[in-house]
């Protein structure tokens, strides 16, 4: 399989998308964009005819980097059953690196849980991987993603903006997001992922 042209600058985002997690999801997307990388998520694909697993596999094969959050372990309100999508997609990404060939061997993955060693109780097979705790806090999440990306950059590229700078810009953007949505006739509380992505990219293009 040939390496996609934007492989090194694409990050696969695998995290919960329910209401409580939206602030963290938004912080991830903003940080990735402000660090000069391109967030990729299954949420970007609006083709409902495509098989979801095929979409995920395609995304994973096109991204050198991956951010996986396995913190959602609560039961679904409607079904009272747990959701296994996040650990499953983490497994696919780890599998691509393990069993893939060529450029897939260079994949790098950042795994988050809400608390440091909590994963040992529900996904002990990933022991040995470096798991970061975000404590459901956007500031911590942004810090860790920024530091991770900064550690991966080549010596020829400039250091990334300081975490405090990124966080201030993110807070500034969040303060203006309701007004941006009002001006465009969109509902900020139910903002589509692609629309958020576009707004955040444009804000960073003008401000960061």
């Amino acid at each position, binding site marked *: 399989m040939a390496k996609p042209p934007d492989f090194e600058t694409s990050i696969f985002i695998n995290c919960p998308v329910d209401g409580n997690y939206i602030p963290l999801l938004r912080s991830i997307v903003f940080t990735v964009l402000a660090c000069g990388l391109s967030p990729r998520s299954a949420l970007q694909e609006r083709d409902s005819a495509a098989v979801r697993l095929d979409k995920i596999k395609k995304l994973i094969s096109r991204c050198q980097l991956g951010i996986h959050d396995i913190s959602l372990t609560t039961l679904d309100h409607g079904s009272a059953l747990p959701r296994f999508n996040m650990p499953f997609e983490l497994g696919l990404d780890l599998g691509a690196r393990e069993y893939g060939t060529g450029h897939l061997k260079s994949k790098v993955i950042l795994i988050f849980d809400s608390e440091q060693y909590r994963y040992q109780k529900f996904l002990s097979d990933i022991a040995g991987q470096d798991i970061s705790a975000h404590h459901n806090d956007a500031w911590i999440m942004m810090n860790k993603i920024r530091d991770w990306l900064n550690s991966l950059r080549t010596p020829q590229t400039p250091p990334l903006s300081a975490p405090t700078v990124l966080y201030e810009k993110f807070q500034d953007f969040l303060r*203006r997001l309701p007004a941006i949505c009002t001006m465009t006739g969109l509902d900020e509380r139910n903002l589509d992922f692609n629309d958020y992505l*576009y707004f955040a990219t444009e804000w960073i293009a003008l401000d960061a």
Partner: protein
Amino acid sequence: MKEKLSVEKASNGDWIVKAIGGKGQVASVFQSKPQAVLYARENADGREVVIHTSAGQVIRRPEVKTSKPAKVMRNAVLKAMQTK
């Protein structure tokens, strides 16, 4: 190499728009980033506009299908920024 317009932060804090990959190296200088970006877009004339962060990273623009036309969304962001 096809000519592009690059928006970059200068060492003195100004923002510059310059053509890269072509013959000319004429640069325009602006005091704010929004001014520089808008100038580059208005004068792109078919050239790609490459926007850098103040730390020097190139901003990637993911290809997404938005609910509203891109122009409407861009204008809203610019207006919100101007009322900061």
